[in-house]
């Protein structure tokens, strides 16, 4: 599929889907069940608003979403009690499939949501969005509901704060523009059309999710995109412009950690797909530096991008979903 065609046919603006009554009718016609997963770690300041808005608008007024679940990595603040006080289902990631050795990372929460939640479609939305709005969910769900061939919908945010008429650049954050898009342009040129591949908001069909490997750390979004693309091609993706996302900005140093984790995942995929070979064993230590008076000091951080296997390989999942091994 050519990038230009894909951009034309599979890139949407959330306002296209603002007729929520029609969206709900179409969802009910297909007898779909939809789950919303909000992965959390110390999000007491923003979690209440997300729960209230999605519950009120997309469960009470328009029954688009059937369940909302908070899957928490072990917050030390009041995230869980706040979420509970607003009536949300809350789960500690380590309590889901408890016999598995626990791992800490956002990807772990996303992966365990596949087991815990019942939806035919799961929409994942980060918990740190200050300007949360129902469009963050329905904008991602609608392409899946209206277009059977679409399997994975990514969010992007494209509302410039000030701009005169004419051409302007559009794109993702710093890690996307200086790492991911150049890498995609080198190895998977079609994927460079995904405007914000690292956005934490996406909706995916269960049959796709349950066969994906899940890096538990920074590489989860990148791995998903490469794996879904390798199996289904670009046509399986869509992206929706959700206008603007107000959130905490990360320091450059934190972005360095993110880039390091993503690179591990990326090189792993390149090897699996036989796009490169003969790589040496890669270090898992990221070195960053700080200065004390005139002395430079190295800060070493070990970042290992572990992965969970496809959920379809977990016996408890097969039992829960009533799937026979040979299905």
């Amino acid at each position, binding site marked *: 599929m050519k990038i230009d065609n894909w951009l034309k046919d599979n890139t949407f603006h959330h306002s296209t889907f603002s007729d929520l009554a029609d969206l709900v009718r179409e969802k009910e016609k297909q007898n779909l069940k939809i789950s919303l997963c909000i992965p959390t770690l110390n999000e007491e300041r923003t979690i209440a*608003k997300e729960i*209230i808005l999605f519950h*009120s608008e997309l469960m009470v*007024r328009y029954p688009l979403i059937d369940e909302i679940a908070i899957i928490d990595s072990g917050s030390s603040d009041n995230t869980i009690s*706040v979420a509970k006080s607003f009536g949300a289902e809350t789960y500690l990631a380590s309590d889901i499939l408890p016999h598995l050795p626990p791992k800490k990372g956002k990807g772990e929460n996303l992966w365990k949501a596949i087991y815990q939640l019942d939806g035919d479609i799961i929409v994942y939305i980060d918990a740190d969005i*200050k300007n949360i709005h129902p469009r963050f969910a329905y904008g991602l769900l609608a392409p899946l509901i209206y277009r059977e061939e679409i399997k994975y919908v990514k969010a992007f945010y494209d509302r410039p704060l000030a701009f005169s008429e004419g051409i302007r650049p559009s794109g993702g954050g710093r890690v996307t523009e200086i790492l991911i898009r150049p890498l995609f342009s080198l190895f998977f040129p079609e994927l460079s059309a995904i405007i914000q591949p690292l956005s934490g908001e996406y909706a995916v069909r269960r049959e796709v999710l349950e066969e994906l490997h899940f890096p538990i750390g920074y590489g989860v979004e990148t791995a998903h995109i490469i794996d879904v693309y390798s199996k289904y091609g670009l046509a399986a993706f869509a992206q929706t412009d959700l206008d603007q996302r107000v959130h905490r900005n990360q320091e450059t140093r934190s972005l360095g950690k993110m880039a390091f984790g993503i690179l591990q995942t990326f090189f792993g995929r390149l090897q699996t797909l036989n796009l490169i070979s003969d790589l040496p064993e890669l270090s898992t230590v990221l070195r960053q530096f700080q200065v004390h008076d005139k002395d430079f000091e190295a800060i070493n951080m070990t970042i290992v991008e572990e992965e969970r296997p496809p959920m379809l390989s977990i016996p408890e999942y097969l039992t829960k979903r009533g799937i026979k091994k040979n299905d």
Partner: protein
Amino acid sequence: MDKKLARILDSLPNIEAMIRDMRDIILTNIVMIGEIPAPTYKEDNLRDFVLNRLNQDNLINCSTDESGNALGILPGKSGKKNILVVSHLDSVFEEEENNTLSIQPDYILGRGLSDNIVSLAATISLPFILDQLKIQLKSNLIIMGTSRSLGPGDLEGIRFFLKNTKLNISNGISVEGVKLGDLSYSSIGMARCEINCWVPEEYDWTKFGAVGSIVTMNELINRIQEIPIPNKPRTNIILSSISGGRGFSSIPLDATLRFEIRSESGEMVDNLQKQIMDIAQEVSSHSGSKVETKVMAKRKPGGISFSHPLASSAREIHKKLGIKSRITPNIAELSAFIDKNIPSVAIGITKTAKQSSSLEKVEIEPLYKGIAQLVGLIMAIDTGCCSEN
């Protein structure tokens, strides 16, 4: 006490409890309204949201007008009376990048909550709330977000509607953010004025000394403060804001003073306004500065009496809900109703506390009582408890 009113009062605790169960709907409206910038004259996006919401709740005639009001009608069983519930759309805040609100279990944090996010949210939540409470009114209930209310808007939206509507409005309720317990059924006379003072190009610096505009404005303020203010009718002059000059080293070339004259007597307001204008002329003539006085807005005093059934019903509703009534005069939407001789009240819906220069904190719990009083008042008007005849 009227038996119908007694029945309504008895139902209020249950209504309050049921409204508490609708927390998410109310808070969602607060968030969605609060995050749409709506400075006066730029209320279009918020107006569209309100219209959309009223449409979603199956109101009829959801529409806007030349003045930019947003309204919808919840039709009553008989439709013989029309009750108009209003809350203004506009806020004093300009459009900015981030005007998000934060919700915590006990409170909401953000800017513009008391003026006018919370009350507008309560107003547009009414159709949903009445539906859940299974309250079907005999009267038509007109829900309206009024445009161009604040500052230079000078109540343009509500005035336009009341002047041009073909509907016979029997009663009005103006819903305001703060403060729960505030109850207004009369408007005081008011003149909102601005005095601009500036140094003209032909100013003779040698003859008058290089004093500039601030000293001139200072003289003007001193003279205003010398005006005797009577105790009866109750009257005051509020010097609200002052600005002028550019920095440390330059002589100020302009200065602006904003103030309000408030009085129970309209004649007194006119009298004081004239005195201040005369002072401005006098100061202008001997200082060499140019002084110009503009009247930005004016209100006439009036309203219903303390013993009017609408006022007494409102107080009974407060009493039943454990709300302490504070009777205060009002110069906002209520005065537009009063100008048209429509028996009306203005009520506060919640309590706020300032957190910083622009952020406010609103407790969630008092909201349920605030909205219960609004529902009770609508029921009382609907059943005829608030009519003099």
